[in-house]
């Protein structure tokens, strides 16, 4: 049901739960020809990383790049079980995961200010970076179904086990935050070590998150903490 919330999160930052330190399990990359990572996804067996001009499929067991698609990708990658979705400049492209062929293209809700993309339950969820928002959109048309407010820059979004998480990177500090998808309340915080930034976030459906490392060109696996609320 389309509904847009335009009010800021009601909870005051002072009432947020205390952050837990992130446990970084593994690092992948940097990979040749891929200076920075702008989006990550997971297709059940491979981690995908959008690195500007290339989409890389990384085998999380070996850390090797097993496939490379020559597709532009600037900020945010998602997998819907069959296709890859990729933010390219001001649009979101639907790609054939086997060939990289562009099957469809819809306008991105923040008109190029977008960062972070995930798929869940028939919707795409898109981060609006400096707008500090997350839009739920119709993957067929790009129409906005709902908007959630955050109070930090959004650089990645993902759903896992009914939990909604977003990555933030602002003022050289990065966190993974579990928020209430209804009102944007912050429920849980995982703090990345100083200087470790998050550009792009995806769950593996289990107990790991994959995080893009921005200009470091790395992808990091971070352990998902147990739910506290």
């Amino acid at each position, binding site marked *: 049901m389309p509904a847009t919330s335009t009010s800021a999160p009601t909870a005051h930052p002072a009432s947020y739960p205390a952050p837990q330190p992130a446990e970084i399990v593994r690092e992948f990359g940097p990979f040749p020809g891929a200076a920075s990572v702008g989006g990550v996804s997971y297709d059940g067996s491979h981690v995908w990383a959008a690195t500007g001009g290339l989409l890389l499929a990384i085998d999380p067991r070996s850390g090797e790049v097993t496939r490379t698609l020559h597709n*532009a990708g600037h900020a945010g990658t998602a997998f819907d079980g069959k296709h890859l979705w990729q933010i390219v400049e001001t649009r979101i492209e639907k790609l054939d995961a086997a060939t990289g062929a562009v099957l469809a293209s819809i306008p991105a809700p923040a008109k*190029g*200010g*977008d960062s972070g993309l995930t798929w869940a339950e028939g919707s795409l969820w898109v981060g609006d970076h400096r707008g500090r928002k997350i839009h739920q959109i119709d993957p067929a048309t790009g129409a906005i179904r709902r908007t959630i407010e955050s109070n930090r820059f959004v650089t990645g979004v993902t759903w896992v086990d009914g939990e909604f998480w977003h990555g933030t990177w*602002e*003022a*050289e500090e990065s966190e993974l935050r579990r928020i209430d998808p209804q009102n944007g309340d912050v429920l849980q915080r995982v703090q990345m070590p100083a200087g470790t930034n998050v550009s792009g976030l995806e769950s593996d459906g289990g107990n790991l998150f994959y995080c893009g490392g921005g200009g470091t060109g790395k992808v990091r696996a971070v352990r998902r903490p147990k739910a506290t609320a």
Partner: protein
Amino acid sequence: MDALIAASARALAVGDPLGALQRVALRDDPAALALRGIAMAQLGEHARARELLRRAARAFGAHEELGRARCVLAEAEVALAMRDLGGGTRGLVAAAATLERLGDPANAMQARLVAARQALLLGRLADAARTLHDVDAAGLPSALAAVADLARAELALRQLQSRVAAAALEKAARAASRAGIPALIAEVAEARSALTRTAARRLSRDGAEPLALPDVEAVLASGALVLDACRRGLAAGGAWVSLARRPILFSLASSLAQAWPEDVARDALIVSAFRTRHHDETHRARLRVEMGRLRALLQPMAAIESTPRGFVLRPRTANEVVVLAPPIEGEQAAVLALLSDGAAWSTSALALTLDASQRTVQRAIADLEADGQVHAIGQARARRWLARPLVDFTTVLLLPASLPGA
């Protein structure tokens, strides 16, 4: 970093400023303003670039220190390219510290390099040396390492240390070719040729012998008493007495040095130093006074003795007197020779030193400025002139690869 910022930064990094602009032309968020500013700088639109970078710096939130510091750095680079050197280096030094603290060492080094180059341009050699001392070339990308070595070479050239300069240029050449930037490679080649060009002439009874910079150094290191008409002073065994702002004393010293080991008649000294043919007893009295002043200044390196017909120079330890003249004759050469000390000279100081009219000096300066060999800082009475730097490398804007949120 959002999608359009990423796409725009990528375009900048591969040398496509128009492509970069096109993606963020209508956006006024700070990251977009910064990218637009850098693209404008790469297109040579320096004034517009500066305005955009200032707006970007203001638009970054108080907590977005890194983005702000990068804008300060980019703006300083643009100012350097515009030769607008009035701003001072304090903001730049603070930005370098911020960049260092927030984990952007490459841009921190870049900020120090810009500060050092600004100091070199202003003739503040000690400041430049101090700042360059803090630049660690080992961890730098090749293009920056080349710029760092070029700056070191320029400092060494200004300090008449051609061996240090040659070694730095050697390293700069290797780094420039690793970086593969044609403009930088050309800069290094041009700077290297400065080492072999004629830097001065050695005057003797047999004529004038052209000397390159290493030859000049050899003369200065030889233990001879050197009258240096380029920098207007006397050197002996590492000691230096500047007569740059004492034209009459310089003229007297010059006559004595050129005549050495012979003496010079009083009348001849009066004619050349006071520029008069009709002299009388008052001129003789004045000559005695001036000679007394010169004698006091030269005391550690030479004595000036009276002879029956005039005066003679007697070096204390040196067994030879050498006279060095500017590489070419004429007012322009003399102005350039003086400016090559790296200091900022006013027109009136140049006129006083050269014992020429201000009008003559202004004409020479105008010609040199038209050739791009000198430039001015300051306005009106505060205006000062500086020689074109020995090496004049292009700005290497680093930011595209590491923009806010990259």
